[in-house]
């Protein structure tokens, strides 16, 4: 280069494969420790013959019934119904949250005005809306979707607004200078610039929504993860109960990890 300064060329990193291998080892080692502790806790608890009914809560019965529950379609059914409620609730939160976030990021007046009501509403536990949701909606499904949406909309709004704040106004000038039309500004500049932050908001939203989903399904409905747990408790099938808790953890983990991958894919911020 003629420039006196040399650029840092991107070098193929030889550590990538090794890093993945280490990651996998840690992943399984961590889970093994968790399950070992779980087994140990149940083992110690059931040393006392009076507490022998706790044995059903152990990891081995849980894993055994996991297979049975999968075969009977119980897990698939819960996955489908809970996933539907979560998905629709999140979609509503994104559809409402992203535009509000964009307005919030663009208009200082709106930002100043909306700050106090939004912060106040954000701090209301989503589950406390449940009685209102039940009165508002005829069915249980819409009520649960409403709870998910109202829980998830806040992180989406605030992350979108934060993303927009990072958009350099000079980008608009450069784009206009190179012949960009208004829709180019939105599709080529604003959206790619804030995708990272919107996804980060969605990841936070999924975290909250996942927490809200199970207790919301304890009441009224006859399907989904919450119902299945509650049903297992009432019919004293504790191995089912623990298997379902495992599934909830695993599914939540997979959703979160997928979002994290998406976020990394769309991240353009250099550390």
């Amino acid at each position, binding site marked *: 280069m003629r420039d006196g300064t040399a650029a840092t060329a991107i070098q193929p990193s030889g550590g990538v494969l090794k890093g993945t291998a280490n990651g996998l080892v840690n992943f399984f080692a961590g889970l093994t420790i968790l399950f070992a502790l779980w087994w140990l806790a149940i083992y110690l608890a059931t040393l006392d013959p009076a507490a022998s009914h706790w044995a059903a809560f152990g990891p081995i019965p849980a894993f055994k019934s996991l297979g049975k529950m999968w075969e009977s379609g119980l897990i698939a059914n819960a996955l489908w119904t809970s996933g539907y409620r979560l998905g629709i609730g999140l979609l509503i939160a994104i559809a409402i949250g992203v535009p509000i976030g964009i307005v919030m990021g663009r208009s200082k007046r709106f930002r100043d005005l909306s700050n106090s009501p939004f912060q106040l509403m954000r701090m209301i536990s989503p589950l406390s809306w449940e009685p209102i949701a039940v009165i508002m909606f005829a069915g249980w499904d819409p009520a649960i979707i409403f709870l998910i949406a109202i829980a998830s909309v806040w992180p989406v709004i605030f992350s979108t607004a934060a993303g927009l704040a990072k958009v350099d106004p*000079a980008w608009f000038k450069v784009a206009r*200078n190179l012949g960009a039309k208004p829709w180019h500004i939105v599709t080529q500049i604003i959206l790619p610039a804030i995708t990272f932050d919107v996804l980060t908001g969605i990841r936070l939203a999924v975290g909250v929504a996942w927490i809200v989903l199970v207790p919301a399904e304890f009441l009224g409905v006859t399907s989904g993860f919450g119902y299945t747990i509650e049903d297992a408790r009432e019919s004293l099938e504790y191995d089912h109960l623990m298997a379902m808790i495992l599934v909830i953890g695993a599914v939540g983990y997979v959703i979160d990890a997928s979002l994290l991958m998406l976020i990394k894919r769309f991240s353009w911020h250099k550390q």
Partner: protein
Amino acid sequence: MLARAAATPPAVGSSLPRENHTVSIRGVNINIQGLGYRYSTRGKPTFSNLRLESQRGEALAIIGRSGCGKSTLLHIIAGLNRPTEGSIQFDGKTVDGPSSRWVMMFQAPHLFPWMKVSQNVGIGLRFAGWPEKEKAERVAEALRLVELSDYAETNVQDLSGGQQQRVALARSLVMEPELLLLDEPFSALDAFTRASLQRDVRSIAKRLGFNLIIVTHDIDEAVLMADRALIMAGAPGKIVHEFQVDLADPRQRQDPAVQSMRARLMDAFHAAAQISGSAAQEMEEEAISGIA
């Protein structure tokens, strides 16, 4: 040539002229009459009744202190701001907005950090709806011109400041502009990088035949890059002096002819009645630090 039709996809696959390729002269005759600008209706005008003419293919420098309105003038010529009075005509046609025929390079590269180098360079063609293949060819040509061919796939955040400004230059060149406007585009770079970019921008402009208008507070930059230099000063700003920079290319800073031209320009700057002694002193210091 598709110089005039950069905003529409080409009928035949065309590209920027290569080395040793006969280039038809592009560029534009610029005619600015009675131009004035004020930020608010009551405020003092930034400048008024400004007259400026530039011939096809000319490299023009406008020198002045910060705040004399030279940057505003450049934004207006680029069509990014509207003048409050007067008119700008390119080849007899009034300028009424931004266009890919006249492209501006800013003080900072303002690259899009989520795009690779090649995507940044091709963004203007993408706005214009060019097909992928023709776009890729044009981008490759532009990257060759700025000597960044090896960096097409690099993330722009991994480039040095000088390289980033070269990407911004390629992003402008890819539009095959008739006029390239430069708003102190190298002021943030170190002296060596600045010198190489000054030399390269001038030689590319001369080779391809497009006009340059360079706004700068660096007298050396004007001497090294321009065919003609205007000194702008006062409030409201006006052009107080005009200078032909008749020097052979390539221009070297230590060349005696360049040195004496620089001294004459500096004298002219001092002579400009509106400029206070301290302002001229400041200019002098900046120019000296530019050499070091």
